[in-house]
């Protein structure tokens, strides 16, 4: 099993990781804990699974891409 985990913007700088692969996770929250070594979650962090917005409780599967990032500020 292989799950790709990405961090963007201020979260990428805080965590110190842009991209990592973990071997197992049942949920996005568990992916966070494994990829960050249980770093505290900022209150406003957003979650995407396979390029769609999701939740920390959302299930993840083998091959999924899970991304964590702060509120978006484009436009």
């Amino acid at each position, binding site marked *: 099993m292989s799950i790709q985990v990405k961090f963007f*913007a201020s979260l990428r700088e805080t965590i110190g990781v842009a991209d990592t692969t973990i071997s197992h996770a049942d949920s996005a929250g568990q992916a966070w804990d494994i990829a960050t070594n249980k770093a505290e979650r900022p209150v406003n962090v957003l979650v995407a699974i396979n390029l769609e*917005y999701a939740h920390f409780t959302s299930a993840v599967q083998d091959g999924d891409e899970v991304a964590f990032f702060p509120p*978006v*500020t*484009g*436009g």
Partner: protein
Amino acid sequence: MSIYIEQQAFDPWQAIIDHQQQSDLNKQFGATATFIGSMRDFNEDADVSQMVLEHYPAMTERYLNQLEQQARERWDLLDILIIHRVGDIKPADPIVLIACWSAHRRASLDACSWLIEALKHQAPFWKKETRQDGEHWVESNTDGL
């Protein structure tokens, strides 16, 4: 219908002119509404000398396509052009362009207004500003007022 992510500075007016010439819109449209967001040299009362725009490329592409699709379902549009800048940005540089063409005015005006709001709330872009006291991530979008 075209969506572009630009790594380099772009001229929004020339982009509209080029798009209009290349498309087969000629004589069909009666209304064109555009919005251009550009970098100001101040934000929240602090001078901003430069900015970096980061994005999540695959998700950005998906969301801009989704927003365009939603706009076309909701309004009777003849064409949409969306351009969003990423990378190193200088004051006065255009950041985002949205242009909508329609037969009648409300479709293009309302779609253009909706698209910029939806883009700002959903598309995964992030701004980091360089101010006198260093670099700062912009923490949230303003309400636009």
